[in-house]
């Protein structure tokens, strides 16, 4: 990547705000608490302002009226994010961000209506399956964590061949423990692309970064992982 005039060093993480994004502030706070510098990106930006990684936050972009993430995918900033992701820029999509990544075909599969048809908000146990991605290196493989989960359309779905390939290539990043909350195939809570720089995750690590406001601080690892990777890169 070419140097950007605004770049102040390592650890600048862009957080995109789409109309209807809700957890953008929380994602920025999480980056800050992890020691990074959050950079607010706007959906109409045609430039990533030289950030070292991008987070697509949770929320209801464009009201999620058509399909979650279907409209946000076409925003100018997503054109840039897709390009950069293909060149290796670390990208984390949380919840709505995961849906946007699937809609953009940066990740395989899709997210569908929860099998019980209700929005669900609860503290969810997860097992980190792949601790080698840009966003999970600070975890140990198999580590169990608890972070909030909140969604109406969180059921991960892909055809059997894709699911088998994901398993075989170790691209399932996290799996639900203690009961599948939404009907996700094979209890999948998050997946990564082949290169391991793009991660989509249904639960919300950015809501588990302070003991006062989250169930745990287990979510911090996602943000510290990418920051460390940037330092050592």
């Amino acid at each position: 990547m070419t140097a950007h005039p605004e770049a102040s060093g390592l650890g600048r993480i862009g957080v995109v705000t789409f109309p209807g994004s809700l957890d953008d502030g929380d994602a920025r706070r999480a980056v800050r608490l992890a020691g990074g510098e959050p950079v607010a990106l706007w959906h109409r930006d045609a430039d990533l302002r030289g950030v070292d990684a991008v987070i697509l936050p949770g929320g209801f972009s464009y009201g999620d009226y058509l399909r979650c993430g279907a409209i946000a995918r076409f925003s100018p900033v997503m054109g840039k994010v897709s390009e950069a992701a293909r060149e290796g820029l670390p990208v984390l999509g949380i919840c709505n961000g995961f849906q946007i990544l699937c809609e953009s075909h940066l990740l395989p599969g899709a997210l569908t209506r929860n099998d019980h048809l209700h929005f669900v908000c609860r503290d969810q146990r997860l097992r980190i399956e792949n601790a080698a991605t840009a966003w999970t290196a600070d975890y140990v493989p198999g580590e169990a964590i608890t972070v909030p989960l909140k969604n109406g359309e969180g059921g991960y779905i892909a055809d059997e061949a894709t699911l088998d390939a994901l398993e075989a290539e170790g691209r399932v990043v996290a799996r639900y423990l203690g009961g599948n909350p939404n009907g996700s195939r094979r209890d999948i809570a998050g997946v990564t692309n082949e290169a391991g720089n793009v991660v989509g995750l249904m639960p919300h690590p950015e809501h588990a970064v302070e003991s006062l406001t989250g169930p745990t601080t287990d979510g911090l690892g996602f943000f510290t992982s990418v920051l460390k990777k940037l330092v050592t890169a």
Partner: protein
Amino acid sequence: MARVVVDVMLKPEILDPQGQAVQRALPRLGYEGITEVRQGKRFELEVAEPVDDAALARVREMADALLANTVIEDYTVRVEEPDPAQAAA
């Protein structure tokens, strides 16, 4: 076996935020000339017995009671001829 299709749409005078969101998105994707979009639901019901008038009347009842919220939605019921492509699949 026959298929009955129930289309459920918001009544014309009711605000349709979903349709609006799609309509607003289209020009941004380079599609002009769509003056309105309304988004509704489509139900495909597979009926075990032959669909005679009585059966259709019952589907209408179901639509009224369950598939549509008649306070804000209208529905239409029709028998769909089996699509040969589908049938083959």
